[in-house]
């Protein structure tokens, strides 16, 4: 009895463990081999994730069985397509605990979501002398759109600096908030350092200063529980293709009031209620922001991905990836002499480990590992200012997902030792 009680208590505090070996069976691509007959060791999930059978079938099902346009036809196929598309919206809303599906706008990716906000909200609310606060660790997707807005509107950008350990300097953030910025936009999880930012606290601080907040969740939604209501943000963006969904799928979440007040981003079919030759009335949200035929099958696939992740349990996903990260940060320095890791301790990061081997360019590292079937990202990962901050031209990056197993990290360590051997011979 006592045993049972402790197990139960344990169940409440600790999420169920994922079985990544069983999960791997859901990903057909993991059964493939490269041109040298080596099995795939995919360590580039931060760029895009692999897709499980359930997602592949959802996309395929649409194309095979009910390919038709949505929100238009009144025949059976079209109703099915519309139903599946709207069901995907509801699943996506559930994944991030959005209050209602209508607050989910489907877009092609996180980049498009940020541009939507920059064009539709930014261009109407940022004026001369207004500032937007960003951070030094932003992906170009959450930097360049704001550069365009302030260039056009004569506003200013301010940046929260990053410490040597890869953390945001919150004391400077607090000072920047005294400038009364109109908007604060930052990434939930850094795609280079892996840093998980204290977003809830940052949102509270921004709201206290009267700013709206956009969170770039591209590297968060796939890997940890995200509850937009708890975070209290105003805009939250993410890509479907990094969360086991198809490329061409993504979402913007924003509070209903904001979306309703924002003018359309793109104009055309589907986003209107009534069209006259000289003026039109906008459709209700989210359709107001979904002009033209969307990538229907991709969004249906994104819904299937959300469902797949929720079935695994996002707490369990996070625990699995944290364990892998801890393992990688322990094994790599031990097994690969001289390796330099960037970013904070494993406890403070998502499943991303960026590194360099002394005197060896990351491109050469990635090229040599490719022989062993290891897929690794090399370059600046669309974070050039962050690389400059650390005085790095480029880094190599390993990133993990639900299907990653410790043996792959061992293979990475062995591969890196080979790289060092080749360059030292």
């Amino acid at each position: 009895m006592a045993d049972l009680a402790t197990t139960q208590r344990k169940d409440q505090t600790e999420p169920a463990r994922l079985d990544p070996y069983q999960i791997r069976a859901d990903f057909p691509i993991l059964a493939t081999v490269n041109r040298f007959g080596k099995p795939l060791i995919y360590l580039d999930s931060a760029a895009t994730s692999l897709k499980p059978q359930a997602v592949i079938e959802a996309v395929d099902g649409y194309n095979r069985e009910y390919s038709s346009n949505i929100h238009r036809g009144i025949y059976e196929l079209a109703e099915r397509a519309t139903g599946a598309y709207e069901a995907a919206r509801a699943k996506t809303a559930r994944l991030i605990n959005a209050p209602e599906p209508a607050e989910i706008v489907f877009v092609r990716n996180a980049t498009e979501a940020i541009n939507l906000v920059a064009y539709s909200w930014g261009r109407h609310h940022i004026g001369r002398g207004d500032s937007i606060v960003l951070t030094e660790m932003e992906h170009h997707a959450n930097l360049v759109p704001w550069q365009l807005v302030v260039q056009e509107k004569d506003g200013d950008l301010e940046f929260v600096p990053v410490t040597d350990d890869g953390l945001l300097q919150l004391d400077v953030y607090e000072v920047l908030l005294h400038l009364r910025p109109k908007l604060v936009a930052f990434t939930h999880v850094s795609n280079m350092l892996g840093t998980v930012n204290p977003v809830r606290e940052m949102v509270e601080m921004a709201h206290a200063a009267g700013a709206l907040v956009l969170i770039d969740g591209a590297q968060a939604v796939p890997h940890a529980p995200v509850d937009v209501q708890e975070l209290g943000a105003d805009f939250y963006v993410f890509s479907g293709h990094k969360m086991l969904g198809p490329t061409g799928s993504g979402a913007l979440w924003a509070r209903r009031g904001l979306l309703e007040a924002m003018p359309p981003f793109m104009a055309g079919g589907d986003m209107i209620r009534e069209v006259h030759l000289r003026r039109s009335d906008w459709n209700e949200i989210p359709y107001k922001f979904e002009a033209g035929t969307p990538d229907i099958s991709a969004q249906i696939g994104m819904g299937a991905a959300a469902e797949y992740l929720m079935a695994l349990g996002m707490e369990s996903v996070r625990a699995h990836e944290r364990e892998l990260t801890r393992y990688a940060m322990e094994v790599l320095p031990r097994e690969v002499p001289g390796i330099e890791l960037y970013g904070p301790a494993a406890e403070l990061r998502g499943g991303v480990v960026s590194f360099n081997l002394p005197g060896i360019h990351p491109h050469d590292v990635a090229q040599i590992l490719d022989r062993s079937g290891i897929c690794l990202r090399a370059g600046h990962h669309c974070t050039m200012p962050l690389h400059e901050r650390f005085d790095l031209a480029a880094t190599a990056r390993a990133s993990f997902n639900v299907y990653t197993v410790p043996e792959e990290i061992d293979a990475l360590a062995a591969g890196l030792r080979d790289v060092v051997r080749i360059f030292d011979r």
Partner: protein
Amino acid sequence: MDDLYRDYILEHYRRPHNFGVLEAPTASYEGSNPLCGDRITMMLGIADGVVREVAFTGRGCAISQASASLLTDEIKGKTVEEVERMTPDDVLDLLGIDISPARLKCALLSLDTVAHALADDTEEKAEEKAEADGSASGAQSH
């Protein structure tokens, strides 16, 4: 073990030929490959239409550094016309390894940078000529 990372490629990477700076280059250009952060500066000393001296600095991957090392050896002593006629295939032949499409930019950065340096050089000459032909005001703003 690896076709790409042959001994001579790595040798050029570790000890690149013509690595350094020229005191008074007649043409120079900094080229970069933003995707991978490769960056090299090519400096040429041209006299009577011939590349008499050449040097480069910068950092990058083994492929781009070896390519710059081999290319600078190759063009030293050639006429500007000969260098201008060099094609990407010539550089790939110098490297002597199979370059995957993803690495072509690395392999060709050196040639591209040399081409830009030469173009700048001829432009400068044209400018100088124009200035000399035009007003006699000797002051130069660069």
